[in-house]
Each structure stands twice: as C-alpha cells, then as structure tokens.
C-alpha cells in the first residue's frame, strides 16, 4: 500500500506540473475580450481568407470610408475630386498620419499599395473597380491620382471596402513588393495594431499610440478563438468574454435567452444584408413565373422569423432592404396568402388531385430541390420551415443539405431549383452584388439565366455601374430591381441583423459599426 501512496503522490505531482506548464493568465485590465471562430490570420490587407475582415478593419484604413448613412466620407483622404467625365479621381491625403511602425503616410505609400493590389488583379476580379483602373500615380507628396479606363460610379465604394484597397506600411512590404505572397509585419494606420498571435488561442490587439484620429479608449482588445456558438455563449455566461458581436456568433435561441437575462444588454442592428433564396428561372417547374410567385406567396415569413430567428430579424420583402442606397423603391410585397399561392399553381396547371399531397402536371409531381449548406444550422432550419409551408399547398421541396463543395458546384452549374443565397450587406450592396450578377459562376447569374430579359438586365447593370449621373443611376437600379422582383427570381425571407451582447457593467459605449464587418472597438470602453 505504501508503494501505492507513493505512486499516487508522484502522479499528482506530474499532473500539477503538466497543468502549470500550460497555465496562462489573461490580463483583463483595460481590455475588451471578444471572440472569433478562428485566429484573425496574418492580417494581410490585400488578401482574403484566412484574414478576418473585422480585424483587417481594425488595423488598416482606406482612403475613403462608408458613413452610417450609406454615403462616402473622408478617411485617409481628407477630400477628393472627380473629373466630370468620371475618369479621374484625385485624392488629397491627410498630412498627420503615420503607420503604427512609425513610417510616414503619403502618396508614395498609397501608390505602393495600389501597385501591389493591381499586381494581383486577377485575384480581385470580382471587384468592379479593379477592371476599370487604367493608372495611378503620386502627383504630389500628399496628392494621389487614380485614372479609370471608363466611368465607374462605385469606384469610391469599392475603395472603401475592408479589402483589398487598404494601406499597408511601405516598410512592411516584402522586398519584391508583391504582397500576394505575404507581408513582413501587419502595420497599418488604424486605431489598433496586432500585438500577438497565439495560434488556436487568441489574438491580441493593442492601441495604436500613433493613431491620427481620436485614440482608442481601451488599451487592448483580446480576440479569443472559439469556433462554436454554444461554447461562445458559455464563455460569455461565465464571464470569460465581454462581447458577442455579429452574425452567427451565437444561435438565435441563445440571443433570445440573453435578451431576457438581467444586467445583459442584447441589441439588434439595422438590416445588414438579406437572407434570400434564389429561384432558378431556367430549371423545371421553377422556370414558370407562376410557380415562383406562388413560392413567394406561400411562405409565411412571420412564422418563419418567429420560429427560426425568434423574431430577432426584420422581415424582408425585397432583395435589398429599403435602407440600402437606391433601393427604397416601394415595390409591392408578395403577401403571405396560401390560397393565392394555390390558385397560382392551379393556373399554371399544377393540380392537386383529391386525396393526393403533391400537385401534378402531365403526370409529373411538383417537386423541387431546395439547396443549402448542410452543416449551417440556421440555414437548415430555414429550409425545413419553408419545406413544411410549401407542403401545405402541395408543393414538395426536396431538401438538399450538402457540403460546401457540392453546394458551390451547384451554384456554378445552376444545378438547383431553389438555393439559399444570402446577400452580402453593406458596403457591398447594391453595386457589388448587382455587378456579380454578370458573372456566370454565381448563383444569381444562373438563377436569372432563364429570364427572357436577362440580356436586358445585364445591359442595364453595365450601364448603371458606368453612369455618373445619380438620377439616371437611380432609374436604372429601379428598372433592374423591379424586373427581378416582378419576375420573382428571389424569395427574400428576412434581413440579416447583427447581434451585440455585452454587460453594461463591464462594457460601455458599445455600438454597431456602419459595415457588416466593422466593429468600432476604439469607441468602446471598459470598467
């Protein structure tokens, strides 16, 4: 027995040693603890995944930025001028800006960044402006000139995006200047600088003391890595994190519960995109307008929003929310009316035989594939609810919840009747999304492919992007969006609203950013 005790003692000792080796203390003093599903990445401002957009926005700044009202305001450029033909943009840069590594910010630095981005233009092809840029140069120490090959109105909007047109310190460039292979250090002009990456554990941001604007109120932001929503909610509950912010960070149920928890503030943002399904106008029964309209009528959005999102998300009647620029069009909503849906289907020849559950036409049952990414719980719930509602009027939906690869391929090939296709939110709407409707590999293009007026739509999209006249632009947008709405190409369900949950006792001045992926940490303070 003595041996056994000795053994146990040795065991406990090893155990303790192992534990202390991995023990870590997180200093919470003057720190906001946030969480993200993965590390924020190497923070290359000119590249995409695995860089997290919110983190890129913390560290890097654009020349111009999106204001909460949807218009463009100054950022690193104090002011700018656009030539009458819409081809020449001159930016007048701030003179008091330095990068977090001490490098001065000037037109040379901007040119260097543009060079790097345009050197990898193929990668940024999705972004309209990259196809339009004909040249750029530093015309003075604080004056930068951009030349387009043809007019492109959303040029400023594109430049304001979290990536790729954001400014990296010239000293952080690799020696050959090609940032697509990596950067030396993530040094930007933003209010934060990346202080530490602990892979799989957290990323630590510290206040950029050289920031030109109002400096952040809190000295540190720690972004803990928590991949799954349940663990995140638990961590918030036990006080391990201070803030939950964004879409998909927690489940609707959890949000609903936290909303009712005392001393917890749970807020919902305005619309930041739309949860919509695209209906394939070129395939099977979905090619019939009446069937598409029936789908819109048979969907009880109120019940869906209440059931799936617990009433947290605003109802969507159109592809873009009215708050989106150019999109307040007063289009007539497809109201929930299953009788009308049934009538439309009857008219289209899809009859419900007595005793049958599924409508038929010429012996063919009315069955359509509803595609979504299988492991996304919210998407799955939406699909299940729509399926149940469609079933009530004799329209059978076959749920195809697949892996992302297969889902992606279906988008590309147009191999779907209905596909869940959320929009991207500000600052991408409407111009970037509309412009992507031109690209054959997108679900939008494939869904619209069956429309007789697809060529017409595409022409107007090209036109709207090039127009310099705001009134014409508004009219063209109205035409495009009205056509898409009347053709019932989309089944808008609800607008995506962001969640923000925190304890006011701990976190103050918390507010939503203007963009979907921008969190104004610098304005937050902690107690």
């Amino acid at each position, binding site marked *: 027995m003595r041996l056994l005790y000795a053994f146990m003692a040795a065991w406990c000792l090893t155990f303790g040693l192992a534990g202390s080796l991995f023990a870590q203390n997180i200093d919470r003093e003057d720190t906001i603890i946030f969480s993200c599903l993965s590390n924020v990445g190497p923070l290359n401002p000119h590249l995409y995944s695995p860089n997290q957009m919110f983190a890129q926005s913390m560290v890097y700044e654009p020349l111009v930025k999106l204001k909460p009202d949807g218009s463009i305001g100054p950022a690193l450029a104090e002011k700018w001028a656009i030539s009458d033909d819409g081809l020449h943009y001159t930016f007048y840069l701030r003179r008091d800006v330095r990068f977090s590594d001490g490098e001065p910010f000037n037109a040379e630095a901007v040119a260097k960044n543009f060079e790097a981005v345009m050197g990898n233009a193929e990668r940024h092809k999705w972004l309209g402006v990259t196809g339009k840029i004909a040249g750029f140069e530093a015309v003075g120490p604080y004056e930068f000139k951009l030349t387009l090959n043809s007019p492109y109105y959303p040029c400023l909007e594109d430049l304001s995006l979290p990536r790729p047109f954001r400014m990296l310190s010239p000293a952080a460039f690799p020696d050959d200047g090609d940032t697509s292979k990596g950067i030396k250090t993530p040094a930007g002009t933003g209010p934060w600088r990346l202080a530490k990456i602990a892979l*799989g554990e957290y990323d630590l941001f510290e206040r950029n003391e050289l920031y030109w604007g109002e400096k952040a109120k809190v000295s540190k932001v720690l972004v803990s890595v928590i991949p799954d929503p349940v663990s995140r909610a638990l961590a918030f509950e036990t006080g391990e994190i201070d803030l939950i912010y964004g879409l998909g960070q927690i489940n609707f149920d959890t949000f609903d519960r936290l909303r009712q928890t005392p001393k917890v503030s749970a807020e919902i943002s305005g619309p930041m995109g739309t949860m919509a399904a695209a209906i394939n106008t070129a395939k099977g029964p979905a090619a019939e307008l009446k069937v598409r309209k029936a789908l819109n009528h048979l969907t009880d959005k109120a019940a869906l929003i209440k059931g799936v999102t617990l009433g947290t998300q605003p109802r969507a009647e159109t592809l873009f929310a009215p708050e989106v620029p150019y999109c307040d069009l007063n289009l007539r909503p497809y109201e929930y009316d299953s009788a009308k849906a049934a009538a439309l289907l009857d008219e289209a020849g899809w009859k419900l035989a007595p005793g049958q559950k599924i409508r038929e036409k010429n012996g063919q049952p009315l069955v359509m594939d509803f595609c979504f990414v299988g492991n996304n719980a919210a998407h799955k719930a939406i699909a299940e609810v729509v399926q149940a509602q469609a079933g009530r009027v004799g329209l059978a939906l076959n749920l195809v919840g697949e892996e992302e*690869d297969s889902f992606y391929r279906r988008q590309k090939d147009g191999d779907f009747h209905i596909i869940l296709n959320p929009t991207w939110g500000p600052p991408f709407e409407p111009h970037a999304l509309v412009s992507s409707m031109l690209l054959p590999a997108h679900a939008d293009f494939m869904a619209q492919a069956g429309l007789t007026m697809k060529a017409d739509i595409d022409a107007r999209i090209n036109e709207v992007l090039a127009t310099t006249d705001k009134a014409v632009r508004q009219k063209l947008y109205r035409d495009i969006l009205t056509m898409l709405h009347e053709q019932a190409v989309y089944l808008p369900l609800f607008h995506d609203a962001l969640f923000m949950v925190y304890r006011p006792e701990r976190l103050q001045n918390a507010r939503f950013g203007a963009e979907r992926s921008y969190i104004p940490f610098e304005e937050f303070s902690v107690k």
Partner: protein
Amino acid sequence: MLKFIIKRLLTLVPLLLAVSVVVFLLLRLGPNDPAMSYLRLSNIPPTDAALAEARATLGLDRPVAVQYFAWLGRALRLDFGISYVTKAPVTDHLLHYLPNTLYLAGVSILMTIGLSLPLGIMAARYQGRWPDHLSRALAYIGVSTPSFWLAFLMIMLFSVKLGWLPTRGLGGLSHVIMPAFSVALMSLCINMRLIRGNMLEQTHTRQVLYARIRGVKEGYITRGHVLKNSLIPVVTALGMHIGEILGGAVVAEVIFAWPGVGRYMVSAIFNRDFPVMQCFILMMTTIFVLCNLFTDILYAAIDPRMRLANEGSGND
C-alpha cells in the same frame, strides 16, 4: 535492449509506408475534386479555366503514381503543402497545435493509469464486496457512456450550475480536468477491470501459491508477484488505449474549444481542406505507432522474457 528498439523501429518503416499509400489512395479514390475545394476556400469563382489552373497548381493533372511519389517525397521532408484555408504550411500549424493535444492526451493517460490502478487494486482486494461491486457498476457505466454526452453533463454541472470549472480553452489544471476526464473515462474503466481481473487471476497462480508456501509476506506477494504480472497485459492494453484516447481527444477538443489538432482536423473536414487531413492522419498514426513502440519497450522492461529473449538473439 538497444538492438531490440532499433529492430522495432526498422519494422515501422514499411508499415508507415503502407499507411501513406492507404492515405494517398483513399484520398485520390474518394469522390472529391480537391481543385474545387481549393477554389471555394480561396473565394475564387470556379470557372472551368480556374479549375484547370487549380488542378495544374495542385499537380492533379499528373499520373497518380507520379503524384504519390512527389507527395511522399515532400511528406518525408515534413512538407504537406499549404492549407487551402489558412494558406499557411499545414505542418507548421499542426505542429503548433500538437503540444496542446499531447497535453490533453497525456493528462488523459495519466488519469487512466492513475485512477485505474488504485481502483483496480482496490476492487481485486475487496473481491465480492462493495468496492468490487461499485467498480463493476462504474465500469459498466463508464464503457457505455458516450464521451460527448459525459462532457455535456459535466459542463452543465460544474460550469453552468456550480461555476467551478471553466468551460473551454487551454489553460492550467482547472481547464484540463473535464476534457481529460471525458476522454479517459472509457479507457480508465476498461483498464480498471483489466487490472482487477489480472490481479485475481494472478492470486490464483502457482507462483503465488509457491510464494505463500515459502511464507512470503502478503505485501511482497502483492507487489512482487501479483502486481508486476498483472501490469504486463495492462501495458499492452495501454498501447491500444492510446489510440482510443487520441480519437476521444478529437471529440473533447471540439466540445471544450481546446486548440488542438483534433479541432483543427474537424474544421478541415467541414472545409474539405485535404492537405490538413492528410497531415493529420499521418501525424496521429505515427504518434500512435510510436506510443505502441514505447509500450513494447516498457513491456520488455517489465518482462524479462521479452527483454532477454531478444537480447539472446541479438548476441548470437
């Protein structure tokens, strides 16, 4: 002993080669197009041209045998390519996460040994009385409880209700207790019963009878004969338990947001990040094989039959 180890190490080479062939073939014969995953994870629209280009960059357009040897050659230099998601070398990331997994697995193994040994001995000592019955009940419960469910129950009790233990993440002892226990429970129970059974079996052997006949003290008998002989099969079984523990660690890492290779692997599965998957399985298999080698050595250290038989042949 050294010869024995070297000999065993050499037998690992063809085994691991075979393993690499299996891994490679399974991936190539599977219904996937890595190029498609690559494009999707890079946010590149999958046009036919882009697909063709991705195939060329990934080397998928070459004959399978050529691909295999190229891959093997790089794998031998620990180069498993670039993750489709993080765009960073797979090996770097996995090696970074590996210590965390080994920490979790190590604590689980410590728990398995540290708890099963005294409990098993206790059960054998009080055979047929309540400690034995309790351990039997515990064993049945332990081997029948899904580890993820146990983890859920523990979180509910110790984190949500009592607030004693943190729910997630890497850290000191308080962080590792729940994940390690959820991983260890099954092996622990099996081991406990194994030790009990062996001990009882050993107390009925002739060598123990002979020791009693010689008037050897019970304490000496328990330690010198019963325990020592009982541990030999336990050591062998431990090698197997390590496989189970490595598998269990994956589940625990996901539940407890533990930054280990298992969690990385699960997200790689969802993303179809093939280089990560390949590197992960080869890494874990190698660790498993090495652990088994280690238990063999331990076995030889305890059991002179093993050791001397091999030394004998070594000297010839």
